[in-house]
């Protein structure tokens, strides 16, 4: 789960990282008040959960109240990658002398947490990583939860060139790690970390991704989810223990297991069709899940046929069959269903469906070819 810059900045501050002073606002009056407290010039930063905000014109420096009115109105009209700007973070403008890049991330290939830093910060950091990889410094925690002073010393010296900066940098890294562990982050990034004219370090941006699997133990963080960035159908699916992602094709897919669900979409495409969605009913499916899945998929007017592809393991084919029959009783299905059932209790399921005149297939290929022919 992603959280906004101002929320991430608050978590950084709580962990002892110096941040640029600021206030989150939703109206120009709030912004005027915030700016007069901070003193002009201030920076208006659009809060959106998508990248490329700066390039899209979502950040403006303003030098006066008059200019603030004008720019605030502009930003409030702005939509970045399809997302309307609804909140604007008003921060003090800093006299930036130098920019650094700092991050902590789980490096799954090495089963470890890695701190990354570069004295060449800014938006071009990925380019730097490619063209001048030596400018990117890394420190692996090697399973520890804290920094090992001896190993850390050469790392911090390679990033910051004076003892004063090294000391401040160490405080920031300690705070970054604390933030990371306290909040179950999968990523915590400061880009840029800046030095002002007086030689003081600040986090001038804040980016945090939280581990969805750990939100159960952080109720306060779970509440930060911005529903503007969630598909209502996907949220509803999640509440019903279905994993659903909407796509733009016309073949609805109901599958058990994420791998098989992806493979089913791929094969629909290879057979000349276009998947309308990814939908994993998960294990131990009860009949109601099929009903819920059909309802969600059928909301899309583009869907012209639905494939139900089940490989029974924990999932029992007869449960799925019961769900299909229940759906036929409860709703008027506007599109044909193509059903493939294999595995646990397949024979019982097929008998149930055949009795009601519903055709079933045993192999994925037969079923996919059929559903694609019906949809095209």
């Amino acid at each position, binding site marked *: 789960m992603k959280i906004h810059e101002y929320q991430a900045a608050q978590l950084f501050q709580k962990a002892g990282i110096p941040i640029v002073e600021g206030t989150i606002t939703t109206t120009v009056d709030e912004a005027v008040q915030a700016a007069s407290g901070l003193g002009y010039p201030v920076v208006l930063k659009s809060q959106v959960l998508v*990248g490329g905000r700066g390039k899209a014109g979502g950040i403006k420096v303003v030098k006066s109240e008059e200019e603030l009115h004008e720019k605030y109105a502009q930003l409030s009209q702005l939509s970045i990658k399809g997302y309307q700007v609804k909140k604007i973070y008003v921060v003090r403008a800093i006299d930036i002398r130098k920019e650094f*890049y700092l991050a*902590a*991330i*789980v*490096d*799954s*290939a090495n*089963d*470890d*947490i*890695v701190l*990354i830093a570069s004295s060449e910060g800014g938006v071009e*950091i*990925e380019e730097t*990583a490619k063209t001048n990889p030596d400018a*990117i410094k890394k420190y692996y925690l090697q*399973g*520890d939860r804290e920094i090992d002073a001896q190993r850390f010393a050469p790392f911090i010296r390679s990033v910051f060139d004076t003892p004063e900066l090294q000391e401040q940098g160490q405080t920031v890294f300690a705070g970054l790690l604390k933030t990371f*562990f306290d909040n*179950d982050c*999968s*990523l915590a*990034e400061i*880009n840029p970390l800046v030095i002002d004219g007086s030689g003081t370090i600040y986090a001038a941006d804040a*980016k945090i*991704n939280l*581990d969805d*699997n*750990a939100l*159960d*133990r952080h109720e306060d963080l779970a509440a930060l989810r911005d529903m503007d960035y969630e598909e209502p159908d996907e949220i509803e699916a999640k509440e019903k223990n279905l994993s659903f*992602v909407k*796509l733009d094709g016309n073949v609805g897919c109901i*599958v*058990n*297991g*994420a*791998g*098989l669900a*992806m*493979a089913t*979409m*791929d*094969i*629909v*495409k*290879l057979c000349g069709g276009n*998947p309308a969605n*990814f939908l994993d009913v998960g294990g131990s499916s009860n009949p109601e899940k099929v009903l819920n899945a059909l309802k969600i998929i059928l909301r899309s007017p583009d869907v012209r046929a639905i494939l139900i592809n089940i*490989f*029974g*393991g*924990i999932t029992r084919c007869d449960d799925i069959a019961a769900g299909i029959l229940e759906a036929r009783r409860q709703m008027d299905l506007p599109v044909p269903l193509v059903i493939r059932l*294999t*595995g*646990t209790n397949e024979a019982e399921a097929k008998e149930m469906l055949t009795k009601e005149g519903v055709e079933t297939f045993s*192999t*994925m*290929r037969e079923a996919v070819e059929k559903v694609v022919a019906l949809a095209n």
Partner: protein
Amino acid sequence: MSILVNKDTKVIVQGITGRDGSFHAGQMIEYGTNVVGGVTPGKGGQEVHGRPVFNSVREAKDATGANCAIIYVPAKFAKAAIIEDLEAEMELIICISEGLPLLDMVEVRAAMRGSSSRLIGPNCPGVITPGECKVGIMPGHIHQPGPIGVVSRSGTLTYEVVYNLSREGIGQSTCVGIGGDPIIGTRFIDVLELFNKDEATQGIVMVGEIGGQDEQIAAEYIKKEISKPMVGFIAGRTAPKGKRMGHAGAIISSGDSTAEAKRAILQDAGVHVVDFPDEIPAFFQQKVS
């Protein structure tokens, strides 16, 4: 021969008194797996399917001589369950539980440094050596003994592959579901090494997915070390682009983790990459006895 589990494997079930643990313990026993007991803290002394329940892994191991543990506990208790196994020096740990927090797995991997235990999973279907031992949740009846090793990041997609092999009369030496999480105990390359050394395994199927770099790392190994015939399948060619992990994700990942990139790199390593799971048996038909 086979890898990881066989008829001599003695299995304890962590979470045996829970709904899933109890159900699958029964299924494993029915398949012929030597389930020697279970563990649920506070429920020692009870019996499930006629097998004794213990309060701790250590107690269960001492009493039964178990060398393999399978974990069915809820995600929030899974880290502690794995670490208990590591401390009891359990040879093989198979974690079925899904939804473990990432930092829990970082901690588990740290605890595994210097340990001789092997962890499979989490979030995996388990391991089966057909006809001998099933330690997992896969439907046993679709498998049959034979010469093909199967290793996969997925659950039901593995069943699909196995079903197609068995339908054409091609059995399996061992099938290993390594799990779909970013941090897992055993990766493709580890299982490929075991299959490569195993005389009973004459061919290998590798089922990968989009995301991560494990297929690429495996490809380097395959190119250098494996001469057994291999088939690859990668799921997720039509999946929408994954979430970006800030700039840091791009900085640490050494390459492209799309399905097409993985297919190309496996092909380059000499793996026969197929579009459909039902194309797998034909490839092996001439190559294995």
